[in-house]
Structure formats: C-alpha cells, structure tokens
C-alpha cells in the first residue's frame, strides 16, 4: 500500500535487471544508507556502535560468506570460523611483517588467503556430498585452530597466541575510535554485499543454485560442477576471511584462535538458518537477531524479581532458546526471516487484493 507501481515499466533489459526494480525501494535504500553512513555515526553512542552495530555488521558479512556456500551452492559447512581465523591472522601478519601495507589492501589479502585455505578444504567436495562434506569442513575447523595455537609464528610469538589490532589508518585518517571502526566495517560490508548481489545474480550464481537444486541436471546442461563448487568455497572463504579480520580488529581489538572455535561456526550457521538460506537480506536479519536476542534476554531476566533466575542460568536459557528457535524455524519457516519479509512485501504490493 506504500507502493505506487503504475507507470514503472521497463523498456530495456538493463532496467529490468535492477535488484530494486521499484522506485520506492530505491529511495528506501538510499535513505537507509544515508542513515547508516551519516546519522548513526553522528548520533550513535559508543556502546551501540562498538557493542551492537559493529558485531552485527561483521556477523552479517560472515553469514553472507557461509550463505554463498551453503544457501546458494548447497554445500554444508561447519568450518566457517576457521576461515575467519585464517583471515584475521593473515591480515595481522601482513600488517605486522610487511611494512606500510594499506589497511584495506591487507584486509583483501587476508581474505584471499582465507579463500585459498577454503579452496583447499573444498577439494573433497568434488568427490563427496552432503554429510560426508562435514568431515572436510570440521577438519578445517580443528586443524586451523590447532595450527594457529601450535605455532607461535602466526601470532608473532605473543603469549597464548593472542593477537591485537594494528592501528586502523586509511589515508592517514585514524579509525580507532568506535565511529571510525564502525564506518570502516560498514564500508567494507556494503561494498562486499554489492559484490555478492552481482555474483548471485550472475551466471555463476545461477550455476551455484543449479548445483544446489539438482546437480545431475546441472551437469547435463553443461555446468562444470568442479569449478562451480570450488569457486563457491573460495569466494565464501574470502568473505569469511574479511569478516574474521574485521571481527578481530574492528570489533574485539584482540583475539586468540579459540575466539574462532566450533561454536562460532555454529553461530554463523544459525544466522543463516534464522535469516534465510539463499537470501542476502537474510544475513542481516539473522545477524541482527543473534546479536540482539541475548541482550534482550538478559535485560528481561534482570527485569524479573531478583534471584528468580540467577545469572549463571541465563546462558543455559539462551542455549535452549536458540536450539528451540532453530527447530521452530526449520519446521515453520525453512526459508527464514527473509521469507517472512518477502511475503509481507508481496502482500503490501498487492493490497487490498490477495493475489
């Protein structure tokens, strides 16, 4: 009912290809970006910036990374955190060892390193499918964390493998303040989402979905399965790597390999299940949920009369809630929050008619 579509018609395919085909959507997006880039850093307080928004953005990016692999290319993975770790440590080492490397550049290189590692652990996917693939990704999970803790070199021989953020400078502008880190993260995330949007709508994106939906048919119409799958692993790895680096340096500041353990991988998997497999928007929704839900829960608990639920139990409650929620979503809305949003939007476009 907010839409006014009459008169919005396309005379060229280029117009028809736009993601935001409707003027109203385009304006909405512009407004959103304006708020995100100008209003938020200007008004937002440090707590919100560094404790809510930055992790939200980074997790969205990580979700996107996994979503490309699992949601689009249909390759299940439990090793996301490992590739984040690779990204983080690679970026760190580049910053530490290679003098005067621009931050964004080393971020990208970190991502590429993660892409390579991911590609490596993706190789078995050429031979094996489904659950069997879990082994490969879990192997990545354990092997990477082990390697990073085992060999001091990766953490520049710092105690207990903890690495800490380099100075975040871009073109001499220092970004160590919350607002700066927020803007850095936001910029990277927006850019990479734009890229992902192009990807999933390109031939490669369609090939991913084809492999996901029906790989025999995909092969028969001439899609090179091996190349398609490996690209999915590599690109997903790149996104996760960059996300990992941001997680380490823009959000936490210092991080150790065990910050990227199996639970982080699960967390990211949950993001895309709740948000929506095979949806870009879903990553934001899922991440927002994952970030805000615990805050919400602990606030609720603190509202309750003291001692009714002691702090120790809150964590257990969270776990149970999350678990239950995952099951609920898988049953009721396998396509996640994104699908809900879609339906709502569709309804609004047709209102007051039903179809």
């Amino acid at each position, binding site marked *: 009912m907010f839409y006014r579509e009459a008169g919005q018609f396309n005379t060229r395919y*280029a117009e028809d290809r736009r993601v935001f085909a409707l003027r109203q959507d385009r304006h909405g997006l512009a407004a959103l970006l304006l708020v995100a880039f100008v209003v938020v850093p200007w008004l937002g307080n440090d707590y919100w910036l560094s404790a809510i928004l930055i992790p939200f953005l980074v997790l969205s990016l990580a979700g996107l990374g996994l979503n490309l692999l699992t949601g689009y290319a249909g390759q299940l993975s439990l090793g996301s955190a490992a590739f984040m770790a690779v990204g983080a440590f690679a970026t760190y080492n580049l910053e530490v060892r290679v003098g005067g490397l621009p931050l964004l550049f080393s971020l990208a290189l970190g991502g590429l390193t993660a892409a390579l590692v991911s590609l490596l652990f993706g190789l078995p996917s050429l031979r094996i499918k489904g659950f069997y693939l879990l082994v490969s990704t879990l192997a990545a999970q354990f092997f990477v964390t082990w390697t990073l803790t085992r060999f001091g070199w990766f953490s520049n021989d710092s105690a207990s493998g903890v690495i800490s953020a380099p100075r975040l400078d871009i073109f001499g502008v220092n970004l160590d303040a919350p607002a700066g880190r927020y803007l850095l993260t936001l910029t990277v995330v927006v850019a990479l989402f734009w*890229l992902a949007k192009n*990807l999933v709508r390109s031939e*490669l994106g*369609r090939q991913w*979905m*084809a492999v996901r*939906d029906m790989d025999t*048919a995909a092969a*028969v119409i001439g899609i090179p399965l091996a190349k398609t799958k490996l690209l999915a692993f590599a690109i997903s790895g790149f996104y996760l790597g960059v996300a990992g680096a941001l997680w380490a340096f823009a959000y936490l500041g210092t991080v150790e390999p065990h910050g990227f353990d199996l639970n982080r991988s699960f967390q990211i998997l949950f993001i895309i299940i709740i948000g929506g497999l095979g949806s870009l928007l879903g990553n934001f929704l899922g991440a927002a949920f994952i970030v805000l839900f615990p805050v919400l829960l602990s606030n609720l608990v603190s509202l309750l009369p003291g001692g009714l639920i002691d702090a120790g139990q809150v964590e257990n409650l969270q776990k149970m809630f999350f678990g239950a929620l995952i099951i609920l979503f898988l049953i009721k809305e396998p396509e996640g929050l994104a699908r809900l949003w879609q339906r709502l939007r569709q309804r609004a476009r047709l209102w007051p008619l039903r179809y």
Partner: protein
Amino acid sequence: MTRTAATQLLELDNISLSFKGVKAITDISFSVAAGEICALIGPNGAGKSSLLNIISGVYQPQRGRIRFDNRERRGMRAHDVAVRGVARTFQNIALFKGMSVLDNVLTGRNLKRRSSWIEQALRIGRAGREDDSQREAAERVIEFLHLQPWRDAWVGTLPYGLQKRVELARALAAEPRLLLLDEPMAGMNAEEKQLMSRFIVDINRELGTTVVLIEHDIGVVMDISDHVVVLDYGRKIGDGAPDVVRQNPEVISAYLGTRH
C-alpha cells in the same frame, strides 16, 4: 530447416550397460538421422531411460561405441556431451526448484556465456551486453513455448504440465543439435499432450533440431515421429518407420503381451 535424412547425426554401436551385473542394455545399435524425430518405445524397464542416460553421458556404457556428428565419442561425461550440442529433459522433472522460470531458461544457456565470473561480479567489460543478448535469447525460447505469463514464477509452484514445458524450454535454450526427451508427456491429459507434441514438432520443423524421445502413448508416437526404435528387456526388437514397426510381430507381442 534440414529435413534431409541423408546424414546420420547419432550412431550407437553395440552398446551394453549393466548395474552390478544386472544387464540393463544388451548390445543395442541404431542411428538417428539429422533432422528427424526418433521415438524410443518399449515396455517399462526395457532400458529406454538407461539408453538416454548413456547418450547424454550420465551413464558410461561398459561396451560399445557412440558416434555423434561423425565423431567417435568414448567415455564422455555429461558436461562434454552438452558442449557438443546435446540437451535433454528428465523422466521425473529435474528443474531447479529454487529459481524462477526465466532463471531456469537462462541457466540452460550457461554454455553460451563468454564473459568471466569476475567481469560479471564487477559488472565490467562485456558482462552487461552479454546479459542483454542472453536475456533476449532466453525470452525467445519463452515466447516459442508460450511461457510468458509464468516468466517470473517460481518453478516449484507451477503445475506439473507447465513444469514439463519449462524443462523443455531449459533444454531448448541451449540451442542443441540433438534434443533428448524422456517421456515429455508422461502424466499429461489429452490436450496437454496435444500441446506438447505440437511444441515438439514445431521445434523439429522450425529450428531443425533432431529429437529423440521416449514416449508410452503409441498414438502420439506414431503421430509425430519419423522413426521408431522398439526396445524390450534391453534388446532392440524393432527399428524403422512408424507404420513398418507397427506391423512387426515381435513388437506386437511385446505390447499386447502380458507384461506392460
């Protein structure tokens, strides 16, 4: 286009296939002329689908030679076969359920892409122009099969008959020289069948595409095909023009026999 049945497009030569010792196909040989519609018929389990799977490279025969377009073809995987210009549909629809009709058709043209995925991701170089040309080609297929009303529909939501048509569209989008149709009219009602066979004939006549199809409805087969090959228990028991085959006693027994 080409209705000259002179040149053989596809030649099968003593093909044999077995699963774990169970013989599915016992040395079958036949050839398909360029530009004809050739029907594979036979009772269930006669090995028709297996044969199609061999031609399209999904299965590899244990013995025998396949010549496509006068070139030997040994141990070819599905991908290479597609590259050589063979497209197919499946007995139980194998569409990409998570994609729109248009995307399914576009995916059928993936071999026609020249620009790299990087160009497409960054939207540089020929990517944009190519998107236009690909889209137009896909739209022509959609028009040819009268799918415009469902262009943006999600294939998972379409009725069975339409899904079959979309799958045909996806195969057709590849601009194949040889089109393999595995029971394109299975489970359709009379007018759906009528429509579908009209499409198949049009494809063959207008685009000059050679068609090999598996169909149970003898009426339709005799109606549209120039050449019929009859299989039974993995052996070839008949091969020739429809009315010739109709007279073949072995064929009659296979069909009027108890097992069908």
